[in-house]
């Protein structure tokens, strides 16, 4: 087991099988966020915060598009069942303690987005000697950077006045989502020979 991606090839690139699994996982997670953002986004914006929802939709879509083009794909028979497990994990999980149903659904989406943007740091596993000109490496750095900015919307909404009465429930849901997303990320990495320290 390695602690980082690799071993890198002679040009400092991540092996294609690792690229394939990592990209598939990230596309699955960010794709789910894009879909759920799209369903939540109204055709006519009523509140200022909804402008952020619009931005989220297109940033998530950008991440998916970027990975599809930057990855050196390799045949991977294991992806089928893994994708099913990932996709089922991203299903909407409203925070049931919140009686206002649209708010409960929004809280569920925000916890998933927080867990994906904060809990997955794909660029930290790039070895220092990774080729900075490699599009996959650059894509991972960009995704991590954008995730940090996208995270603000989740932090603001989850700490915002709407959820103050449900702070404990929101906090519990968020910790559960974080644990689940980290476990899936860790399992996927282990399947390509990478063990991350907990």
């Amino acid at each position: 087991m390695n602690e980082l991606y690799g071993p890198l090839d002679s040009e400092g690139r991540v092996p294609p099988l690792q690229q394939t699994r990592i990209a598939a996982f990230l596309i699955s997670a960010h794709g789910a966020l894009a879909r759920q953002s799209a369903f939540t986004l109204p055709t006519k914006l009523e509140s200022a915060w909804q402008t952020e929802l619009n931005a989220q939709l297109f940033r998530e879509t950008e991440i998916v598009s970027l990975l599809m083009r930057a990855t050196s794909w390799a045949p991977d028979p294991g992806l089928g069942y893994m994708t099913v497990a990932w996709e089922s994990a991203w299903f909407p999980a409203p925070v049931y303690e919140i009686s206002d149903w649209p708010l409960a659904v929004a809280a569920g989406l925000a916890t998933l987005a927080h867990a994906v943007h904060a809990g997955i740091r794909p660029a930290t596993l790039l070895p220092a000697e990774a080729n900075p000109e490699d599009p996959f490496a650059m894509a991972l750095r960009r995704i991590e950077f954008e995730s940090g900015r996208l995270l603000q919307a989740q932090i603001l909404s989850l700490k915002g006045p709407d959820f103050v009465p449900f702070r404990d429930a929101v906090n519990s849901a968020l910790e559960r989502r974080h644990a689940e997303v980290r476990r899936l990320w860790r399992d996927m990495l282990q399947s390509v020979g990478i063990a991350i320290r907990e």
Partner: protein
Amino acid sequence: MSSTDRRTRPPMCSSTVSRNIRSSGEPIATPWWRGTFGSRHSTCSAGAVSDKPALFISQDDHVAVLHRLIGELGNGPVFLSGISFGGLIALHYAIEYRRRLSGLVPMSCFAELSPQLLLLGNALRMGLILGGTGYLQDLPLPMNLSDQWLKPLLDKLDSVKRQRWLVNDLYALQNLMESFLDFKPLTPQLSSITVPTMIVNGEFDFLTPRALHETLRVHISNSSLVIIPRAYHAFTLEKAALTADLLARFAEDVLAGRWQGNRAVWIAPEDAGRALTPFPAGYDHLRAIPVPEAPE
């Protein structure tokens, strides 16, 4: 203050949010507490493998963690030091658990937000949001360390920063910074701190300048202010040996019954082991130029 036999050291508990910087696995600066004290070290939940709360953490949470940590030290004398945000937590602790401590060392610290510090804190938080952890490293590094320290390390700074970037999650840093958004000044409670207190401030500390330490000196009766010459906010990193020596002398003086705070102002030596100098009488220690003190 004096220099005495340092073969046995009292327990020293430190609280900080800035962690020791390494390059390629080798320490650039030895942590100031290592090898000097029986120590416990808390990093205010900014560490890589800690159970960082995803969303909420308050200053009370930090104090509670610190209390559990200090509980591990048993019943012996405990000296608590903290730098920057960690110094604030140390002050909180001293106010809440004053009987548990034998001595307190707030460093590069503050008890209230001056307008400058408030605006700087807001700017750093916004920098973190827009520019990520990398920006939060890039900006304070030249603010908090001297040219003399930075110059020989310029070509290694990327690897230094990479190590910190790897282990500091953006959301944890932001949670930490946001725990100070509803900050309530501690100044009204400072007079309840009666333990011996050595306040330490870098001569050129830009983030928390002398005036912020003066609040502590004036309100904590058994305190002295020690100014570290040619030092900035992060002097524990840059002058690790001197810091360890000053803290050791302080602890020994307290345990030997020699400590007298008297709200005095001292100038630390340039190097460990040398004598401290009283700040020249008649001059204003809050100024950067030798201006006589204004009459009271």
